[in-house]
């Protein structure tokens, strides 16, 4: 008889288990285990990942969990059968049901717990062990143990013995053996594994400290105290129990043999397939499509009508053949629900009521059925979009459908879907927050008791998502030698690497939902999310996909929210709503702006890289924009598609008869729309089919293998198939390999054409709104923050440069959100200016701002700051922020005077014991002392206060104030435009964006802004390494370098960087750097 480990924790026992499931099974295989159980705390978060990995290593996985009972005692439950698994899922769901307090869902989780009687009720198909050495039920409550022993019966209940080499093991195990004898049940030995290897036990100690929110020194009681809760060879485990109860150790394999349930087999998941309706699902779907077809193609040409009808028939046949009618009907039903939600959210009279509630993203946009069921708004026939990737005859799993919604609709829709299908049948998919550099530095450093300031400095400097690189970063610190003399810092280096990638806690996926016709709570446990009405299942998208669950992605898209807000504002101001589906798609003025890269704020084409590309590609049509949004992505960049595409566009502008080069004539047709290069994901399929004779299914397999870069062996086997297939079409090996290399370079990081078409259209619509309704568009963008490439301050500066007037927040005029206010000028007559909303003021939340506006609307404008303080239900901090942020400038008094007066105002106080219901009124007395003569704020102070309090300033730019003090020869952005190519220049600006793409070999791209415009910087990697702290942390910079002009693109290749913070501090006589907004960072850190 050998030993089987029946009690083992992975890192999915959050902040307790120190090893990933893969590490556990790899180690178990190495030590000679044939079977292994995973019993994480109150969950099966990692069970499917574990089961799949175990099978790869030839180990039989056992599913289980260590469950916390009401009162805190633990029991170990192991799954014997499918029924047992369903019961375990129900038990875990029940355990988590009370972890969020109603109305306080966002607070910290309460510990999961389950009543003993629920376990009794759902005991079928499970084997129960009496729990661990420290918190096991067997020790804590022998009476309750007896109750469970009776419920499970002597063949399914065991008293659990452990030997963690703690003081008291002997007595405890004797006690437990006595209990087993008394209950007439047998004992079983377990190891309570928390790490796969002894060296990982240090991390286990650290995890306990993090969980206890203290240092290692502060959690001695909670820590294990030695390195014995580690996976040991089976023989050693039997030996460990030799003097205690050897039979208990040997019994493990007999129990394991009974635990036959296999999580990797069919779980019985079915999505609602509409098979219970009066007609077959395919007929229901055909009816829905036919109805919509008649409406959508009523006015189309006969040719389009016929092609579309043929495409619809073809798709319906394919859908019927694949048995996917229910799948489409389910999505249609969700979208119908979204329509109802949209009507509710937007209001039945809102101008937004004409807009579709959401739009498709990804490959679903290529389907006419999706178009007719409302899942996408792009006509795939008119736009020549292929269906290939979405559904094909070789499909092995259900396709994904991604739907984008404005945020407000999405918020309600998630709850509505849960309620529509029932809380037992629908839940959000989980994600697991894993440790990256900053989290690892802060958490591990705090546990080790390292100085907070040093950790923060390191966290700010850290340069990567991968916490495994923190050790090198510590070694590169100027005082590394001194630091590394300390054991704590040495341990820090090792442990930040160990913790890298380990899950820290469960969180909710941005919008993925699973819906099941069989109760989902019998397939995977479900627990409440941190937002009211939402619940999440315990598996992430990979586990859900492995289990064959259908995931519907309901995604929130900030730009959709902004566009809707903009449409609503326009309708309100001008009396007539605009229908974005009917705007001209070839507006020359809009394309002129796009071609000039005047696109700050436009969807997808606003980034620094996109702007530089726009100046060279010069998009002229909506199709060009479709390519454009897909072009500046890692796939086309690594696939070496960008420069040939740009060059082809240039040549075509000069000579419309120019024919772009292709690697082989067979590729000319599949790559025609992108001038001979691979820009879209679907083209990977098209190329593989055209040049190597792949079937659609094979090509899709290649695309999937590419999106999983780890599967190098799989990619190479596809190469062989690709080259041999190409040879069959008379393509030489060198060409085939070159094409294949480009496809691999493209990898998975590209858009499908259909996705790009949806995004390209939104890019155009947003550009159109930006051009024709600049004030309304800016207002909508400010209200939809956070989103996009630029911080609000830069959006405002850009709009101001284009003639939009922006007004500061004003307690007597502003709404809670940004709004549009009439503004009359002598030259332009009545125009609309953007009035910054009160919620933009720091410390004033949306609720506070709305309460202030309600008070103003009910009882009239505020007379002065004292009146405001008495009437508005705001905290003193919020009132001070309003004054400092300029929202009280309307009272005509200096900000310092108003702050002084604010300090003297008597405000109504709550009567103690009334919970704030009763207020003690104040006497309307004037202050007894005069306001002293306080100096007014300087221009610097006013500007910095604006930035500090609202994140933006509508007044003077910091560079305008700093310019007279800059070193001679420092150019402005405007002067830089006239500089000679190759000349040495100096430039000063405010950093607004910083980008370090993983494809750029360490080069950092920065965008700086001054009072006149923006300037692009290229910071070579060696310059970045030399000035890393300045690049990453300083807002005001003086750079020197070489000015480069390529076509219309202008860059400065940076040689040196200096911080201007000290100069600004001297000039402003105060802290400047700390008040200015931090640059947005994108990509690799």
């Amino acid at each position, binding site marked *: 008889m050998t030993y089987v480990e029946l009690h083992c924790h992975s890192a999915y026992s959050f902040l307790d288990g120190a090893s990933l499931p893969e590490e556990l099974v790899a180690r178990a295989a190495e030590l000679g285990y044939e079977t292994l159980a995973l019993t994480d705390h109150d969950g099966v978060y990692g069970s499917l990942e574990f089961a799949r990995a175990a099978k790869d290593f030839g180990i039989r996985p056992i599913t289980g969990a260590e469950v916390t009972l009401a009162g805190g005692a633990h029991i170990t439950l192991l799954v014997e059968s499918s029924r047992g698994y369903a019961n375990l899922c129900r038990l875990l769901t029940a355990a988590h049901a009370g972890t969020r307090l109603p109305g306080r869902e966002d607070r910290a989780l309460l510990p999961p717990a389950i009543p003993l009687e629920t376990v009794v009720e759902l005991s079928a198909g499970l084997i129960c062990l009496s729990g661990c050495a420290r918190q096991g039920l067997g020790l804590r409550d022998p009476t309750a143990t007896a109750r469970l022993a009776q419920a499970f019966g002597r063949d399914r209940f065991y008293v659990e013995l452990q030997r963690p*080499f*703690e*003081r*008291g*093991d*002997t007595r405890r195990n004797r006690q437990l053996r006595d209990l087993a004898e008394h209950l007439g049940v047998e004992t079983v030995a377990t190891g309570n594994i928390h790490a796969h290897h002894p060296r990982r*036990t*240090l991390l286990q*100690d650290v995890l306990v400290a993090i969980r206890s929110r203290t240092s*290692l020194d502060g959690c*001695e009681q909670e*820590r294990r*105290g*030695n*390195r*014995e809760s580690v996976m040991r060879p089976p023989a050693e485990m039997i030996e460990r129990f030799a003097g205690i109860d050897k039979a208990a150790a040997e019994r493990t394999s007999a129990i394991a043999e009974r635990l036959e349930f296999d999580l990797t087999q069919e779980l019985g998941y079915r999505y609602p397939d509409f098979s219970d309706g009066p007609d077959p699902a395919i007929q229901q779907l055909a009816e829905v499509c036919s109805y919509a077809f008649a409406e959508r193609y009523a006015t189309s040409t006969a040719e389009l009508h016929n092609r579309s009808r043929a495409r619809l028939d073809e798709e319906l046949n394919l859908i019927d053949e694949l048995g996917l009618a229910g799948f489409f009907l389910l999505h249609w039903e969700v979208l119908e629900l979204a329509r109802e939600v949209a009507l509710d959210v937007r209001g039945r009279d809102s101008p937004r009521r004409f807009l579709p509630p959401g739009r498709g993203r990804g490959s679903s946009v290529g389907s006419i059925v999706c178009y007719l069921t409302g899942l996408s708004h792009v006509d795939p026939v008119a736009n020549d979009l292929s269906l290939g990737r979405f559904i094909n005859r070789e499909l092995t799993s259900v396709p994904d459908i991604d739907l984008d919604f404005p945020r407000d609709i999405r918020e309600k829709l998630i709850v509505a879907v849960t309620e529509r299908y029932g809380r037992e049948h629908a839940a959000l998919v989980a994600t697991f927050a894993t440790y990256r550099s900053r989290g690892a530095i802060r958490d591990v450093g705090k546990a*080790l*008791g390292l100085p907070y300031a040093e950790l923060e400095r390191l966290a700010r400097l850290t340069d990567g998502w991968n916490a495994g690189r923190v050790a090198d970063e510590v070694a590169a610190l100027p005082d590394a030698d001194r630091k590394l003399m300390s*054991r*704590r810092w040495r*341990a820090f280096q090792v442990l930040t690497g160990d913790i890298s990638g380990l899950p820290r806690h469960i969180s909710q996926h941005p919008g993925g939902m699973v819906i099941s016709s069989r109760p989902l709570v019998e397939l995977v446990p479900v627990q409440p999310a941190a937002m009211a009405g939402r619940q999440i299942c315990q598996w992430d998208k990979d586990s859900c996909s492995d289990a064959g669950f259908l995931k519907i992605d309901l995604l929130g898209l900030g730009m959709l929210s902004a566009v809707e807000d903009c449409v609503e504002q326009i309708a309100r101001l001008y009396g007539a709503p605009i229908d974005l589906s009917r705007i001209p798609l070839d507006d020359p003025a809009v394309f002129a702006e796009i071609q000039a890269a005047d696109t700050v704020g436009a969807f997808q084409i606003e980034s620094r890289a996109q702007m530089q590309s726009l100046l060279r590609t010069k998009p002229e049509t909506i199709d060009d924009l479709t390519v454009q949004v897909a072009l500046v992505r890692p796939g086309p960049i690594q696939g070496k598609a960008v420069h040939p595409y740009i060059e082809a566009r240039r040549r075509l502008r000069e000579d419309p008869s120019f024919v772009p080069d292709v690697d082989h004539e067979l590729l000319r047709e599949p790559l025609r729309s992108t001038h001979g290069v691979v820009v879209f994901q679907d083209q990977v399929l098209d190329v593989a089919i055209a040049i190597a004779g792949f079937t659609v299914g094979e090509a899709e397999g290649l695309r999937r293998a590419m999106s999983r870069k780890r599967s190098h062996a799989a990619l190479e086997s596809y190469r062989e198939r690709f080259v041999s297939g190409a040879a069959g079409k008379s393509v030489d090996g060198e060409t085939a390999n070159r094409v294949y290399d480009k496809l691999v370079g493209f990898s998975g990081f590209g858009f499908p054409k259909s996705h790009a078409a949806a995004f390209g259209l939104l890019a155009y619509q947003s550009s159109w709104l930006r051009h024709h309704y600049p004030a309304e568009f800016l207002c909508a963008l400010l209200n939809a923050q956070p989103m996009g490439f630029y911080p609000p301050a830069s959006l405002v500066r850009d709009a101001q440069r284009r003639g939009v007037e922006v007004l500061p927040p004003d307690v007597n005029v502003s709404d809670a959100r940004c709004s549009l206010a009439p503004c009359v000028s002598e030259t332009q007559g009545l125009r609309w200016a953007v009035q910054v909303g009160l919620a933009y003021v720091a410390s004033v939340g949306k609720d506070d701002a709305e309460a202030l506006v309600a008070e103003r609307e009910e009882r009239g404008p505020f007379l002065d700051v004292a009146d405001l303080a008495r009437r508005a239900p705001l905290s003193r901090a919020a009132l001070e922020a309003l004054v400092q942020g300029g929202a009280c400038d309307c009272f005509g008094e200096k900000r310092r005077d108003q702050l002084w007066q604010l300090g003297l105002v008597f405000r109504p106080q709550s009567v103690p014991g009334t919970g704030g219901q009763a207020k003690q009124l104040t006497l309307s007395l004037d202050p007894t002392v005069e306001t002293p003569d306080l100096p007014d704020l300087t221009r610097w102070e006013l500007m910095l206060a604006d930035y500090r309090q609202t994140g933006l300033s509508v007044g003077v730019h910091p560079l305008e104030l700093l310019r007279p003090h800059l070193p001679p020869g420092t150019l402005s952005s405007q002067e830089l435009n006239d500089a000679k190519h190759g000349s040495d220049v100096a430039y000063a600006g405010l950093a607004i964006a910083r980008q370090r793409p993983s494809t750029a070999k360490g080069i950092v791209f920065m965008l700086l802004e001054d009072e006149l415009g923006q300037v692009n910087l290229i910071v070579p990697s060696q310059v970045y390494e030399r000035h890393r702290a300045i690049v990453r942390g300083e807002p005001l910079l003086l750079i020197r370098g070489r000015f480069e002009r390529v076509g219309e693109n202008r860059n400065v290749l940076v040689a040196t960087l200096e911080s201007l913070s000290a100069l600004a501090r001297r000039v402003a006589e105060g802290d400047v750097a700390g008040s200015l907004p931090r640059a947005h960072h994108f990509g690799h850190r």
Partner: protein
Amino acid sequence: MHVDGSPRLVNRLLVAFVREEWRVVDRWWTDEPVNRRYFEVILESGQNTCVYRDAEAGCWFSQRA
């Protein structure tokens, strides 16, 4: 010391019985790490005592049981 690492003699007295063994590996992050194997033993004299082998120091110590 026996092959399994338990003590054979304590203060020149034979160990009659090992009542319990436990291990402490702690404070590894400090300059004074602890790595000890404790034994609570009964000596042939009938005396109950506690000894530990300190892996850091490489020697045995006794303490009151």
